[in-house]
């Protein structure tokens, strides 16, 4: 065989194989099921937990990661739009960080697809989120003897930006759903009926697939714009700054969240209004819903889809009226609730010890190395 022929036959083989796989995907979406357990480094995760709840990681030391990702609300927030840094607002709903470690892309627009280390940096440094200069953060952490010991015990050595960005994701690994009725095969009859609808008549599993109940892709479901973004200048300023930074033209006149367009940049703008399929785990705690918190309850969400989603010229054609009865809608809600586990609100997942009121002075400062 000549090289050319070899290449051609290899290519054909690949095409055939790919074709087979994609046919398989179309027929049956990735199987639903429990999330894999993750090994965590206890010392690093514990350090990450202390950092996650520490307001000293924000510019003016007023808010921590947990201020928006509140354990009481499933490590999300009960406000439609995230509160944001003092003096600022936000333009999107806080997603839960439970199971965030099982995702491949992050943020409602999926603009980050590397790792949680990068996501952590983005959240700490973004001006309308935590507005922290990480060099200053490093020096704050170094000033706290508890941290100095914890970093050492975790094998990081001296506290540094890099190890903060490593330890917080290690803590996030511990935030994996557990005990959900679905995972424990302990669903009620209603929830079981809901599962059948989910995979069948209601078509939810077309996008909400796999152990995360998400295809990890953006779709436009026609969720109405949250006009509080524009009515409240605190929110609007964050929206403008974000769109300015992401290179959206005409950001001053923009009256809608373009979603995944910020990374797909399709010339025909058919990607405007697409948002990443969220996981359906832990919904019990994370209301309100959708990328902008426009839907308050799960029955509202189900009704929204039963109507075929919202109105949008770019709406995904997968969305059609479902003609679900009231009872079927209830069953779907029951199923969705069966995807929520035990609340992660004990001190296993929450840092409960107080932080010092002020920074301890380093004694004999002139003689000890910085």
């Amino acid at each position: 065989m000549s090289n050319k022929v070899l290449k051609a036959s290899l290519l054909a083989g690949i095409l055939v194989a790919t074709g087979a796989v994609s046919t398989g995907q179309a027929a049956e979406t990735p199987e639903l099921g429990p999330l894999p357990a993750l090994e965590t480094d206890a010392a690093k995760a514990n350090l990450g937990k202390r950092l996650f709840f520490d307001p000293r990681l924000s510019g003016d030391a007023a808010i921590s990661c947990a201020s928006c990702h509140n354990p009481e609300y499933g490590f999300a927030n009960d406000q439609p739009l995230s509160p944001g840094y003092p003096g600022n607002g936000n333009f999107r709903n806080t997603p839960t960080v439970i199971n965030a470690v099982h995702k491949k892309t992050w943020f409602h627009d999926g603009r980050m697809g590397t790792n949680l280390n990068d996501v952590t940096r983005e959240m700490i440094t973004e001006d309308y989120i935590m507005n922290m200069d990480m060099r200053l953060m490093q020096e704050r952490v170094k000033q706290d003897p508890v941290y100095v010991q914890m970093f050492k015990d975790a094998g990081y050595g001296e506290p540094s930006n890099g190890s903060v960005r490593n330890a917080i994701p290690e803590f996030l690994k511990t935030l994996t759903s557990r005990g959900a009725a679905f995972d424990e095969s302990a669903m009620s009859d209603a929830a079981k009926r809901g599962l059948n609808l989910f995979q069948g008549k209601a078509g939810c599993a077309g996008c909400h697939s796999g152990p995360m109940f998400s295809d990890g892709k953006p779709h436009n479901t026609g969720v109405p714009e949250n006009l509080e973004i524009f009515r409240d200048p605190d929110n609007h300023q964050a929206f403008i700054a974000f769109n300015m930074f992401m290179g959206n033209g005409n950001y001053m006149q923009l009256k809608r969240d373009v979603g995944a367009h910020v990374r797909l940049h399709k010339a025909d703008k058919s990607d405007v209004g697409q948002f990443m399929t969220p996981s359906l785990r832990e919904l019990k705690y994370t209301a309100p819903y959708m990328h902008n918190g426009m839907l308050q309850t799960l029955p509202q969400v189900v009704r929204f889809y039963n109507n075929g989603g919202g109105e949008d010229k770019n709406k995904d054609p997968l969305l059609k009226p479902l003609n679900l009865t009231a009872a079927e809608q209830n069953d779907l809600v029951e199923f969705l609730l069966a995807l929520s586990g035990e609340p992660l609100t004990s001190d296993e997942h929450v840092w409960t010890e107080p932080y010092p009121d002020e920074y301890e002075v380093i004694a004999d400062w002139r003689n000890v190395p910085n």
Partner: protein
Amino acid sequence: MKLRTKPKRLALAGAVVAGVIVGLATAAEMPPLAPLGDPPIPADNIQTDAKVELGKLLFFDPRLGGDASVSCASCHEPEQGWAFAEDISRGYPGTVHWRNSQTVINSAYYGKLFWAGAASSLEKQAPSAAKGAVAGNGENDIMEARLALIPEYRDRFKAVFGDEWPLIGNAWRAIAAFERTLVQTDTPLDKYLKGDASALTEQQVRGKELFEGKAGCMSCHNGALASDQAYHNIGVPPNLRWEEDGLAQITFRYELYAKGVNEKMYRHTKADPGLYFRTKNKWDKGKFRTPSLRYTLYTAPYMHNGAFYTLEEVVDFYNAGGVTEDGRTTDFPESKSPLIQPLNLSDEEKEDLVAFLEAFSGDEILMAKPELPPYAPLFTEADLLLEVKK
């Protein structure tokens, strides 16, 4: 191979000799004290009333900062000499700064701003302060977005700069224009130098003679601004707060880290290296720009780190040759200016000198804080509802 170590010492000795010679040379050509004229106005940022008025609003507006709680005026308080009445400036919430806040009064005359001359114009000083993590901690994008959501600013930026939407760069221009109005040219010294012999007391006249002669102040504090705008290490010791205050220790290390020094310097530096940060020349360690002596009646404490709370302490420090009462001095003795030597001033002479220093200040310049224009939604409900239906 002995030469490998020797030249260092020789070079140092040479530098000292050169320094003395330079010092003497400048003494000969020293610009005399002079009345202060109008400040220079850059051709690319001319003064207009509307621009100055806008700059005044922005100077007092905390929305030009990270969490919308600190404005320029937070560290440059009109009632605190347009500076901040503590040794080290207050800093952004959750932090403390690491240098003394300098007065805005007469800042228009400096070629470079900040203690080590890090900004080449007022237009560049303002964003550095508004954005620094231990000062304003703001970001351009969010600050510019805020301006756009304040209707009065939209109108004013349009009228002054022709901006379709307020540009953050023009905010700094307007603030600089406002700052160029904050000058004082009618001090007792100005009046005296213009011929009003009664403007100084006899004691102040004696102080002036010391200033120009025996005390050697004129070597650096010369010309109309009473500053040579050059950089000197006069022996100011590190602020004791760095030994006693955890928050100050954080900022100190942060500055070493953020301004970029090598590992060894990061680990072992315990005093502000000043000009060194810009030049990375070891002979610039501990050097700071000679501050004007104008308006100092209102701007205590003094020196780059606020080491002294009174002018008397300052004079005592110079009289001792750049050493404090308790024997402390710079951490960088190698770069200390040879111009700083014990002065052997008598108590009376010191009093005369302090009396003269007070002649560099006229009346206190006070200003009521302006009422700031409010935010308002950019779009009408009708606009928004129209969009929703698209």
